[in-house]
């Protein structure tokens, strides 16, 4: 089935099986390997991307459902060489270790700060509660997001 999905601002036309999961469309068809596949039961969130500006678990969405829609992945977050403040904050605050959960968590964090620019620690934890990290124990992820909120504040006003 022919679909066209606007991924990170670029229209991508492909012929896909209806059963193809969005995560595999991104990784295998478009070679956007920044989003990852970590479980079988929609629990881990390594696959989180934005579908029309809403974070979704792309392992639980079919690529055909994204036909005519917009998808944003981690590769679409930075502006060329300029990192998004969330990305920069994760590096500053040691919010990642192995990096496997990181793209999905960053996408959720970016969305959170777009809608709630000054979240409490509890709100940050709640926002990422559907995503698993095995390396950090979450503490530095939370600090990274709170740091990005502080750094963001000056820019967006």
């Amino acid at each position, binding site marked *: *089935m022919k679909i066209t999905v606007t991924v990170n601002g670029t229209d991508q036309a492909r012929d896909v*099986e*209806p*059963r193809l*999961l969005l995560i*595999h469309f991104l990784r295998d068809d478009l070679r956007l390997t920044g989003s990852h596949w970590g479980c*079988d*039961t*929609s*629990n881990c*969130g390594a696959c*989180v991307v934005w*579908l029309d500006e*809403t*974070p*979704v*678990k792309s392992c*639980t*969405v*079919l690529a*055909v*459902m994204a*036909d005519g829609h917009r998808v944003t992945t981690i590769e679409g977050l930075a502006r060329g060489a300029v990192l998004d403040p969330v990305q920069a904050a994760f590096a500053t605050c040691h919010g990642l270790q192995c990096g496997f959960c990181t793209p999905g968590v960053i996408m*959720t964090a970016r969305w959170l700060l777009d809608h709630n620019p000054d979240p409490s620690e509890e709100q940050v934890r*709640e*926002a990422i*509660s*559907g*995503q698993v990290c095995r390396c950090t124990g979450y503490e530095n992820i939370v600090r990274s997001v709170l740091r990005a909120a502080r750094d963001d504040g000056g820019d967006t006003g």
Partner: protein
Amino acid sequence: MGRTHATAREVLVQVPAHVEYEKATSVEQALSLLARYGPGARVLAGGHSLIPMMKLRLVQPEVLVDINAITGLRYIQTAGDQLRIGALARHADLLADPLAGEHFAILHDAERVIADPVVRNWGTIGGSLCQADPSEDLSAAFAALKGSMIIHGPGGSREVSARAFHTGPYQTVVGPDEMLTEIRLPIRPDGGSAYLKVARRAGDWPIVAAGAAVWLTGDGDRIADVGIGLTAVGATHFVAAEAEDFLRGQPAGEQTLARAGEIAAEHCRPVSDQRGPADYKRHLVRELTVRVLRTAVGRARGLAS
């Protein structure tokens, strides 16, 4: 000992089997597609109940009828003395909706503990109800609120009580050529509601959950009407009918609430599994029924809860 073949069910696969796909942009179109393809067709909404089952190949539809483009089905609004929820309302929509929160605290209590925030972005109310998992939380909540479902089919639309909607595990009254389009909840005065869930971890399916909606007499002393929903304990239609019958007309005090909890616990059918043994689940039914009734009564009386 006999011999077995490795059957499809026993083979771990984790990606869906081949399936055909159609997109509907209106209810009429969706219904005609369902009629055309017959029982091998399944409605695809958020997909967060259906697609996980397809990945495990526990369910293998021949055709998916994607209804996400029927944007007119995504709403939460009042109409007279009803709150009406479109079947394509996402869980996140319901959790964020101030009308829902104002009139039915039970819905916010439940949504807060359904899955996780990212899954709630995409899973729909209609999809969850139609999946009819015995551990699904909104079924008990809508049953407690005595809501009703609007089902569209080739003959037009019909209204079914939320307390008759589910006919068994993974079974509803929605026929293969029909579609759930709306949930209606009566807004009644002097009411309060609450939902409480015990799980092994945030976002997990419930071990047991209970929801209650109470409507008090004008003086706030007696229970004029009550709905009690139970999740994950095999309660028929997710309802604790005997406990409801006992409570109606009773004073809204600790003794009667405690008795209601006992009756609810006596009449449920919990099964031992890795979430917990049956005796513990039965205990939770009693404990949680009392707690949600207490909170619901407090809210009905306008007290902080």
